[in-house]
C-alpha cells in the first residue's frame, strides 16, 4: 500500500469508488462543495418560486399549501444543506493546509460526517415525492409542526437529525485538528484568521447542535410515538420548542457567519498586500462573538411573553454583539487603508460584503430593541434583516471563497470577466430584492403569507423584489458557466497564484494527497509571506524527509449513513403501518453493525516510504 497513486490516470468507475471511500480532507471538501452547491441551486429554485408567487397581488402561481412547503424547504435547505456544507467544504479544503497538517484528526469521522449530511439532506427532500415536504417553517414552531398532517414534518425531523449528527462530528473533528495537529511553530496567535474562525465556529457547533438534537427528539416522540411534550391539552408546553430551537438557532447564525468573516480576512489581507490590521483584536472579537452568541437566543422570542425583565436582558446582550462585530468591520477597513489594493472577483465580493453586512447589523440592533420588535416581528423587516446578514455576509463569503480558494482546490483559476459579471448582477439583484423588503415590512407586510392584497401599497415593492431575485438567478447561472468553462479549459496555475501569505499557498495546487512532504517551520504570522520577504521561494522544513503515515480509505461511512437513512424512513412510516418497524431494525442494524466493525477491526493506516517520496521528487 505504499506506492504513490497520485499520478495514475484513473477510470470513471474507480474515481467514483475513490470518492465513495475517501478519507482525504481535500476530496471530502470537493464532495461538500458539489453537494452543498447542488442544494444551493435547489434552495434557489424554491426562492424563485416564492418570488414568482409574490410578484403581484393575489397571485395563484402556487397553492397556499405548496407555498408553505416552499418557504419551509427554502429556509431549511439554505441553512442546513447549502450554507453549512459549503462552509465545511472550505474548512476541509483549507484548515489542515493553513496549520501545516497532513490530514485532519479523525479522517474516518470526517467522511462519516459528509455522508450523514448528504443522506440526511436527501431524506429531507424525499418528502417532495411522497405526498408533501415539510410545511411548518424552517423554525418548525409547535404546535403547528406537531399537528401538521401528512409526513412532511417527519422528514424534516429525521433528515435534520441525521445531517445534524454529521455536522457535530465535523465540529469535533476540526476542534481536535486545530488543537493537536498544528505544524512546529504554529502557535495559536499565528493561526490565520480563517482557521481561528473555523475553530470558534466548531466550538459553537459542539455546544449548539445538541440542543437541536434534543428538540428534534422531542418533536419526533410527539409526532411518532404520541408523547405530549408540546400538547397543551395534556400539560405540555410549546414554548419549550422555541427555546431549544433558538438556543441552537442563534449560535447557528454565527456558525455560518464566522467562517465567512475568516474568508474575507484572508482575501482582504492578500489583495491589500498588507498584514491584517489588528490581528489580535480580530481574534478577540471572534471569540467574544462566539461567547456572546449563546446569551441572546431569546431575542427571537420577544413577543412570546417572557416579561419585561427577560426581554430587557436579552435586548442588551443582543446589542452588545454589535460591538465585536464593529471591531471587525473597522479592522477590515484599516487593512484596506493605505494598502496596495488589487481588485479582482474575490476582492469585489469582499468589498461588496462590508456595506451590505453593515446594513444587516444595523437592522439587527433595531430588532434588538424589544419594544420596537413587537412591530417588526414576523414581518418582511425581519426577512430583510437576516437576508442582509446571511446573503450579504455568508453567501458573499462563500462566493468570495469559491474564487479565492478555487486554484488551491482544483489547480485552475475561475474566469475573471465572468466572475465580475456574476458579482455585479448578484450584488445589484441582492439589494433590489431585499432592500425594499425593509419598507414592505415596516408597512406591515407579514412574512409567510402566500398572497397580499391589492391597493395596500405593497405591489411595486414586491415586483421590484421579484425582479431582483431573477437577477441573482441569472448571476448564479453565469457562475455555473464559469465553472464549466474553467474546468474544460483546464489551464493549470502554480502553487501561489495570488502572491498570498499563508501556508496553504506554499504547496502545489492542488496539493499532493499527503499535503506537506516535510512539515513546515512556522516563524510568525503569515508564514509564507515572511519567507518570501526574506527571499526564499518556499517554507523552511521543520523535519528531515521521512516516512509519512496515512489513513486507510473506508466504505463504512457510506454504508452506515445508508443504514440511518433506511431507519429514518422506517421511523416515519411505522406510524401508518407497524411493518415499517422492520426498516427501523434493518437500518439501525446496518448502522450499529458498521460501528461495531469500526470499533473492533484494526485500522492502522499505512506509510508512504521516504524512498518513494524521493523518487517522486525526481520525476
Amino acid at each position, binding site marked *: 500500500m505504499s506506492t504513490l497513486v497520485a499520478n495514475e490516470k484513473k477510470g470513471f468507475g474507480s474515481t467514483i469508488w475513490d470518492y465513495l471511500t475517501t478519507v482525504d480532507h481535500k476530496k471530502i471538501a470537493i464532495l461538500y462543495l458539489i453537494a452543498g452547491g447542488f442544494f444551493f441551486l435547489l434552495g434557489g429554485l424554491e426562492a424563485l418560486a416564492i418570488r414568482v408567487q409574490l410578484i403581484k397581488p393575489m397571485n395563484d402561481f402556487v397553492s397556499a399549501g405548496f407555498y408553505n412547503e416552499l418557504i419551509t424547504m427554502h429556509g431549511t435547505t439554505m441553512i442546513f444543506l447549502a450554507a453549512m456544507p459549503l462552509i465545511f467544504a472550505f474548512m476541509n479544503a483549507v484548515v489542515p493546509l493553513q496549520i501545516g497538517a497532513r490530514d485532519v*484528526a*479523525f479522517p474516518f469521522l470526517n467522511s462519516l460526517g459528509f455522508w450523514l449530511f448528504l443522506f440526511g439532506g436527501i431524506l429531507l427532500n424525499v418528502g417532495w415525492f411522497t405526498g408533501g415536504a415539510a410545511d411548518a417553517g424552517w423554525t418548525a414552531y409547535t404546535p403547528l409542526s406537531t399537528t401538521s398532517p401528512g409526513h412532511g414534518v417527519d422528514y424534516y425531523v429525521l433528515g435534520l437529525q441525521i445531517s445534524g449528527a454529521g455536522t*457535530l462530528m465535523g465540529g*469535533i*473533528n476540526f*476542534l*481536535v485538528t486545530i*488543537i*493537536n*495537529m498544528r505544524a512546529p511553530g504554529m502557535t495559536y496567535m499565528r493561526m490565520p484568521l480563517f482557521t481561528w474562525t473555523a475553530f470558534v465556529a466548531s466550538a459553537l457547533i*459542539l*455546544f*449548539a*447542535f*445538541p*440542543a437541536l*438534537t*434534543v*428538540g428534534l*427528539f*422531542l418533536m419526533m*416522540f*410527539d409526532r411518532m*410515538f*404520541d*408523547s*405530549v*411534550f408540546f*400538547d397543551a391539552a*395534556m*400539560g*405540555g*408546553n410549546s414554548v*419549550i420548542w422555541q*427555546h*431549544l430551537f433558538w*438556543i441552537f438557532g442563534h449560535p447557528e447564525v454565527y456558525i455560518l457567519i464566522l467562517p465567512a468573516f475568516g474568508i474575507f480576512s484572508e482575501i482582504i489581507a492578500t489583495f491589500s498586500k498588507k498584514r491584517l490590521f489588528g490581528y489580535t483584536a480580530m481574534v478577540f472579537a471572534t471569540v467574544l462573538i462566539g461567547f456572546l452568541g449563546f446569551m441572546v437566543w431569546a431575542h427571537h422570542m420577544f413577543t412570546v411573553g417572557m416579561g419585561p425583565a427577560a426581554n430587557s436582558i436579552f435586548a442588551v446582550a443582543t446589542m452588545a454583539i454589535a460591538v465585536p462585530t464593529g471591531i471587525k468591520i473597522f479592522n477590515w477597513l484599516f487593512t484596506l487603508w493605505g494598502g496596495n489594493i488589487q481588485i479582482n472577483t474575490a476582492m469585489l465580493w469582499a468589498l461588496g460584503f462590508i456595506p451590505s453586512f453593515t446594513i444587516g447589523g444595523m437592522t439587527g440592533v433595531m430588532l434588538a430593541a424589544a419594544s420596537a420588535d413587537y412591530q417588526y416581528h414576523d414581518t418582511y423587516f425581519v426577512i430583510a434583516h437576516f437576508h442582509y446578514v446571511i446573503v450579504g455576509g455568508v453567501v458573499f463569503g462563500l462566493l468570495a471563497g469559491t474564487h479565492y480558494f478555487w486554484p488551491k482546490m482544483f489547480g485552475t483559476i475561475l474566469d475573471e470577466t465572468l466572475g465580475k459579471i456574476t458579482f455585479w448582477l448578484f450584488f445589484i439583484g441582492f439589494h433590489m430584492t431585499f432592500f425594499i423588503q425593509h419598507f414592505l415590512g415596516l408597512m406591515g407586510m407579514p412574512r409567510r403569507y402566500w398572497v397580499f392584497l391589492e391597493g395596500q401599497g405593497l405591489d411595486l415593492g414586491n415586483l421590484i423584489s421579484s425582479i431582483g431575485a431573477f437577477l441573482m438567478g441569472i448571476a448564479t447561472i453565469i457562475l455555473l458557466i464559469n465553472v464549466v468553462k474553467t474546468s474544460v479549459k483546464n489551464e493549470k496555475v502554480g502553487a501561489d497564484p495570488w502572491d498570498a501569505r499563508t501556508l496553504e499557498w506554499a504547496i502545489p495546487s492542488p496539493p499532493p494527497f499527503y499535503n506537506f512532504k516535510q512539515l513546515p517551520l512556522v516563524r510568525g504570522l503569515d508564514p509564507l509571506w515572511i519567507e518570501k520577504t526574506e527571499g526564499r521561494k518556499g517554507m523552511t522544513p521543520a523535519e528531515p524527509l521521512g516516512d509519512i*503515515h496515512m489513513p486507510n480509505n473506508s466504505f463504512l461511512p457510506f454504508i452506515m449513513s445508508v443504514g440511518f437513512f433506511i431507519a429514518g424512513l422506517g421511523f416515519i412510516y411505522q406510524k401508518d403501518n407497524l411493518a415499517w418497524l422492520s426498516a427501523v431494525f434493518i437500518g439501525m442494524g446496518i448502522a450499529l453493525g458498521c460501528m*461495531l466493525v469500526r*470499533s*473492533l477491526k*484494526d485500522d*492502522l493506516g499505512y*506509510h508512504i516510504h521516504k524512498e518513494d517520496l524521493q523518487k517522486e521528487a525526481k520525476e
Partner: protein
Amino acid sequence: MSEQDVLNPKHMPSNPEQATLEGKNKFLGFWFFLGGETVLFASLFGTYLALRDSTNGGASSQDLFGLELVFIMTMLLLTSSLTSVYAMYHMKNNDFKRMMIWLGITVALGLGFLGFEIYEFVHYIHDYEFTMRSSAFGSAFYTLVGFHGGHVVFGLSWIIALMFRNAKRGLNLYNAPKFYIASLYWHFIDVVWVFIFTVVYLMGVL
C-alpha cells in the same frame, strides 16, 4: 511509529492511552464529545424541570418514586464507576488481566442497574398506568431517564465488545485509548445519574 510499535510495543508507557497521536486525538475528541453530551442532557433536564408538575391529573412524582429502589440503583452505578477507575489503574500498570477483571465487575454492576431500571419502568406502567403518553410529566420523565438508560446500554455493549475483541491479545498502544475512552464514557454516565438522582428523584419525593 510503525504498525509493529503500536500493536506490539516493546515496552508500555505509563499513559498508553496518549502515547500515539491517534490516542491523543481520541482522548481530546472524546472530551469534546462529552461536552456536547453535557448540553444534550442539560436540554433534557431543562425540559424535565419545565414539565415535572404537568401531571395532567395522573400520577405525580410523589405518587411514583420510592427512594429505596433508587438508592440501590445509585449505589450500583457509583460503585461501577469506582471499579472502572480500578480497571484504568491496572491498564496504566500494564496489568491486562486485572484490568479485565475490574471491567467485568463494572459490566456486572451496570447490568444490575439496568435490571432495576427496567423493573422500575414496568412497575410504573403496570401499577400506575404512567406512560410517555399519559402526561407531559410522563413524556419528560421517560425521555430523560430513558436517554440515560440508553447510554448505559450503549456503554455496556461497547465495553463488552472491547473486552471480547481484545481478550486474546492483551494491551497495546492501539487499543489502550479505546479502553480509556470507553471508561470515560462510563464515568460520564455516572455523573449524569447523580444529577438524575437529585433532580428527578430527590426533588420529586420532597
